[in-house]
């Protein structure tokens, strides 16, 4: 049996009931093959086109060794300044997330198919949220640095927009999952649309909104640490000069600070989540 035969039998299988043993190997669909060839082609083309220099790659380990030896022990000389920058990073993340989450609630109500006042409004809102989400946070930071100048204000805007795109979508999805019954029950008392949203939709979504917001804050703290690299405030503003001036010991201090803060943020968010769910829900169930 040639490989070609294998494909023809596989194709005719669906038509009639076959009693024979299925073949060990069926030829993959041509679309999968085409996709695999395309990806492989791009990768190979890249390797040829980018003209990668093997000598420079060979220098890598030595340079990293330079960094490691230069970085230890971390330089704590500028620790107070760095701590202040770190505090700014945290504050940027908190303010930005708060703005983003607050804007996400009405945006999600407009976007969710079961609460949108008009079909087209929902489609438009979902499109806007997709655009906000598709543009990376760092690009938003560049745009806002251009708009409002260097500093934490641009960072706050960038974080708020990023959170809006993310939380807006997740809030809307949660709203679409809210049980129909209580909504209809409130509607049948003659309550207005806004009252139904406030009285039935929001209470049912609140826990999920809180969990998503905490995740956004965690994500924003991580994101805020590098926004400074494009001039949008925070600790990132210290990191780039540390590398260009080869002050690796200061760079390491910054990296360690980021590590600690992001780790603490994660712990805090999971602690709050645990408190919210209650011990009952987190008992081993299977």
């Amino acid at each position, binding site marked *: 049996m040639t490989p070609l035969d294998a494909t023809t039998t596989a194709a005719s299988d669906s038509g009639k009931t076959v009693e024979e043993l299925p073949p060990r190997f069926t030829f993959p669909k041509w679309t999968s093959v085409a996709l695999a060839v395309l990806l492989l082609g791009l990768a190979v083309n890249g390797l040829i086109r980018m003209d990668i220099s093997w000598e420079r790659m060979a220098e890598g380990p030595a340079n990293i060794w330079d960094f490691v030896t230069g970085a230890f022990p971390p330089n704590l000389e500028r620790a107070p300044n760095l701590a202040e920058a770190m505090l700014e990073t945290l504050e940027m993340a908190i303010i930005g997330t708060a703005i983003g989450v607050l804007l996400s609630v009405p945006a999600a109500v407009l976007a969710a198919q079961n609460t949108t006042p008009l079909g087209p409004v929902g489609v438009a809102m979902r499109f806007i949220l997709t655009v906000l989400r598709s543009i990376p946070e760092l690009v938003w930071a560049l745009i806002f640095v251009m708009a409002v100048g260097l500093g934490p204000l641009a960072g706050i805007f960038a974080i708020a927009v990023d959170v809006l795109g993310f939380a807006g979508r997740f809030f809307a999805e949660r709203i679409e999952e809210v049980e129909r*019954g209580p909504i209809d*029950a409130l509607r049948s*008392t*003659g309550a207005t649309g806004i*009252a139904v949203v406030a009285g039935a939709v929001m209470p*049912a979504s609140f826990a999920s909104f809180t969990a998503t917001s905490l995740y956004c804050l965690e994500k924003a703290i991580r994101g805020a640490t590098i926004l400074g690299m494009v001039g949008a405030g925070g600790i990132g503003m210290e990191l780039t000069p540390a590398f260009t001036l080869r002050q690796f010991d200061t760079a390491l201090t910054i990296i360690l600070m980021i590590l600690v803060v992001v780790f603490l943020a994660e712990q805090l968010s999971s602690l709050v989540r645990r408190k919210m769910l209650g011990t009952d829900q987190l008992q081993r169930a299977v």
Partner: protein
Amino acid sequence: MPQSDTTGSNVIRVARLNKVYSTGTQALKDINFTATAGETVVLLGANGSGKSTLQKCLNRLVEPTSGSVEVLSTDVTTANKRQLTALRRQVGMVHQRINLVRELSVLTNVVHGALGRAPSPRNWIGATAKPEQRDEAMEALHRVGLAHTAGKRAEQLSGGQQQRVAIARMLMQRPKIVLADEPVAALDPHAGRAVMDMLWEITEEQNLTLICTLHQLELARTYGSRIVALRDGNLEIDTHISQLGNYQLERLYTANSAHQVVLEGAAR
């Protein structure tokens, strides 16, 4: 309908009502039916007999296909959005699935009953609600014997208690007509009785028109006075419970085809 002439005027008038769902199922065929103020009607029938559809046509939660429906002097079939909201405000509903907002307090759920007539945003939450509404809600809770649960979350109550809270919410709406859709189908027999007793007492005491769908014969026998029975979308019986023999009632639950009826007859 022996009592209908004495108690008052017709608050519900349904004439030649048909409902065909988009799937092609004819749920109601030429239904004629009236109810007077203060009357209690049990709509009886098997699953899929059309009793819920008939009930939902009364405040147009289901759009009638043809025929006329008049409720509290509102022509339901032609009413615009505002008239319909005004009508729904006067029609309280008790649902099979209870439909409280589980995450909110019992008091808040009851206060929500007033949102139609007291739409102030303060009434979105029990804690901020206006004093009149808070007091009235407590009174309604007192009436259903659950005043002590006012501060609990709705989901902490048992099914029977939740349905009683739903009755309090319905009371808060100050309706003229009450539509109860299988109010005890989700409850155990004991809790079910308590809820049925309460519903019957309250509608009697406030002289409300009650249209209650049921599928359990026993409950219909215990609580029913006027029985309106549907079978495959046809109104088969409209009479006082005492006029009904068991055979007639049980016939409602045999399958629609004549074939099935013959088989049943042969078995007897």
